[in-house]
């Protein structure tokens, strides 16, 4: 069964399923009642923020 995070992840690794799952876990993305990611328009900001300040470098 394909998870919503896997559907958004890119096969070239530029967006990973773990990254998407982290956004979901932190409420940056959310699922609609069908179990799909509700609104992907915010993804550009999440991608930009992670590229500008990668989470592993950002510290706790």
């Amino acid at each position, binding site marked *: 069964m*394909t998870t*919503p995070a*896997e*559907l*958004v992840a*890119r*096969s070239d690794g*530029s*967006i990973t399923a773990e990254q998407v799952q982290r956004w979901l876990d932190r409420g*940056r993305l959310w699922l609609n009642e069908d179990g*799909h*990611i509700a*609104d*992907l*328009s*915010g*993804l*550009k*900001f*999440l*991608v*930009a*923020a*992670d*590229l*500008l*300040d990668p989470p592993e470098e*950002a510290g706790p």
Partner: protein
Amino acid sequence: MTADRVADRALCGARTRSAGGRACRNPAGKGTSHVGTGRCRHHAGSTPSHLVAAEVVVAERALRTLGEPIPTDPLEGLQRAVDSAAGLHHGLQQLVREAAASDDSRALVPRLALYADAIDRLARTARQAVEARLTERQARINQEQGELLVRFVVAALAVAAIPPELHRPFRAALAVEIDRHRHIEEGGTP
């Protein structure tokens, strides 16, 4: 053949009348179409119910090795599911037509039920595939926009000759601002 090797093999195992109720020692499926599985031909191994039971056992055994996980791109996997559903739909459509053409109502009724299920399955998998492709496209467009924004920032830092030691705090501050903007845009408080 040694006793140990005989014990390792699958046996028919049916209760025998001639041997005082002992289990049949014939190899499983001996003399049937399912050699290696189930009852031998002397103990009802070729009756319809035993043939079906043997097929189930063979399929389950095969799945233990065929069911190994294979890394699959989700969209490709969904497309394969749609193709399989379409193939099943087409095959059942043919079977329904054949039964209808030969006026064989005993065959037609169960085939119609299977055909109805196949229509539902094809519609369901096709819908899932369409939704997945839309999701993938929306994600790709937004990813490109996010990457473009970062390229502008990197170029601006270079053009403005901002010292490299300031890049990291600037990028971190910008990331916070972007996240704040996204939060406000989605109806959150500033």
